[in-house]
């Protein structure tokens, strides 16, 4: 069963008066439980694909389906709702809110969801912080944590609302290799234990080694799609 699907998707960017193609007619379906890496050199269209999967951008042509939703037909508010309810994000540079503690950063998406009361939120946040191994850092602010610890908070934040899939744009780019492997191991464990679908972009061959599905792209087109 696919959680997100591209059908002949095209995405062009306007640079001045010139249209620059970033994605040139991709057909791709990400299945529930996938742990998929989108790999390719810089400028190949990885981030554009993630933005389209993340409802952060709309395609210029073709279609993108998230669950049953056709992205192109959704209003900005509806896109925000889809992001809120279905998608978790992990960013290259963590993007935690600096004035909030680890606990508050993880709690934030739950507050936006407005589903749980404070006690239920607290339990979910503490369970999630424990499962990413940083329950003892709940009261710390991002500036008081290492890069690896911050990325664990970011993973907890992406997963706490139990999304259909998590998008991670080069999640290990800003941390050292050893911590990078730890983060990928953690993502794998979460994928296995919680069944959460992960889609991440990378151009690092070692990171690609963790993937169970490797989608290589070049010049905005799929070069290969292999299950490992």
């Amino acid at each position, binding site marked *: 069963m696919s959680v997100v699907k591209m059908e002949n998707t095209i995405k062009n960017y306007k640079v001045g008066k010139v249209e620059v193609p970033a994605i040139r007619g991709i057909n791709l379906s990400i299945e529930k439980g996938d742990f998929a890496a989108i790999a390719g050199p810089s400028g190949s269209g990885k*981030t554009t694909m993630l*933005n389209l999967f*993340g409802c*952060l*951008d709309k395609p210029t042509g073709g279609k993108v389906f998230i669950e049953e939703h056709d992205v192109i037909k959704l209003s*900005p*508010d509806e896109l*925000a*709702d*889809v*992001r*809120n*309810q279905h998608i978790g*994000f992990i*960013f290259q*540079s963590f*993007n935690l*809110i*600096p004035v909030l503690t680890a606990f508050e950063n993880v709690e*934030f*998406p739950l507050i*936006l*969801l407005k589903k749980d009361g404070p006690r239920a939120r607290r339990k979910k946040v503490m369970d999630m912080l424990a499962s990413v191994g940083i329950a003892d850092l709940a009261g710390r602010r991002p500036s008081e944590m290492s890069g690896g610890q911050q990325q664990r908070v970011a993973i907890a934040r992406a997963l706490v609302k139990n999304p259909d899939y998590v998008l991670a744009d080069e999640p290990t780019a800003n941390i050292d290799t050893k911590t990078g492997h730890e983060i990928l191991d953690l993502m794998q464990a979460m994928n296995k234990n919680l069944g959460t679908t992960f889609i991440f972009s990378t151009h690092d061959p070692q990171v690609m080694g963790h993937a169970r599905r490797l989608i290589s792209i070049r010049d905005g087109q799929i070069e290969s799609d292999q299950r490992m």
Partner: protein
Amino acid sequence: MTLSSLAIALLLLIVFDSYYSGLDLTTYEKLINYETAHLKFFPLGYKEDIDNLPIENAFDPAPVLSILRADPMVKSAAPRISFRATLSNGIYQLPVVGLAVDPAQDETVFTMKQSVSQGEYLTGTEEAMVLGIEVAKDFNAGVGDTLTVLCRTKYSTFQALDLPIKGIIWSDDYAIDVNSLLINLDLAQRSLDLGNGVTEVNILLKDINQIDAFKKKYAGRFPQLELWSWKEVAEDVIAHSEGHAMMKNITFACIVLIALIGISNTILIAAFERMREIGMLAAMGMKRRQIVGLFILEGTLIGVAGSAIGCLIGFLLVAFWTTQFGFDLSFATRSWGNVGFRSMIFRGAWNVELILLAFIFGIVVSALSSIYPALIASRMEPTEALRKY
């Protein structure tokens, strides 16, 4: 930054306003205490010709005074004669305004006696005069010196009185200090051929807020007289004060503008600094209106804090500085002309309404100035915000 610019704008506003209000208050107090009282009865038609200080229609004040003194609204009443005179020492001449007073009655309305800086005040019987301090300075004259007062009687005949200076008044009221000589009422009535006549009856009410009610009550009561409030008598000075009010409003408008630009700018800079954060919030599913709301809430909270700080410091400055010590403007006051006062030290006055208004205004301005940056931030595409910043 936003907080401090707002706080400074508001405290400046409060301090300026305190001074402007203080100026007005000083002006009005001096006018009432030395020149106008709360109200005046003049002969009919006097006001139109007030600059010439006509004495032809002088009236007997006794019937008016007896009615006024029985009126529970009235605190006190006193007659006066204002007349044109020329003061001379045989070499120089100076036009002055003569004020003829019955000291015992006059003291119940005006505060001349308390302002005698040299010599003594009039007692009611002596043939002597009291001069404003600047008039005495112009003649280089002191207590005990004699000067000649030249004036015209009711019938336009000339009259000359050689009068010794009994006292010198330093009132800080421009008209009194620079222009006036005081003599006894009885002496003036004899010298000007006025019989029992006076040119005005001054009235001090128990409550200044009753002026309009009093005017209504006495409308048409004395057909030969007309009743004027202090504001009507001193319309020139009131016009000056309105000038102050306009200055105050311009200052107010400038402060509003500076605060608006300053706050908007700092919030905008803060928004750009936090674009990545905004992009992340949008990515996590925050809607545009929620982002706008977040920024406006932030602006409002900054407004509350900045206004509270500004108003508190402004309040403390008014409490412990402007109303206590004031500004020494003696270097400028002499050359200002008659703006109703020539105080050496200007003390501020309380304007609690303005402080409360400034507090609310600060919050509203801050909230309003955050709307534009909030819209800019919310219109940013999350991908742009994440990539560029």
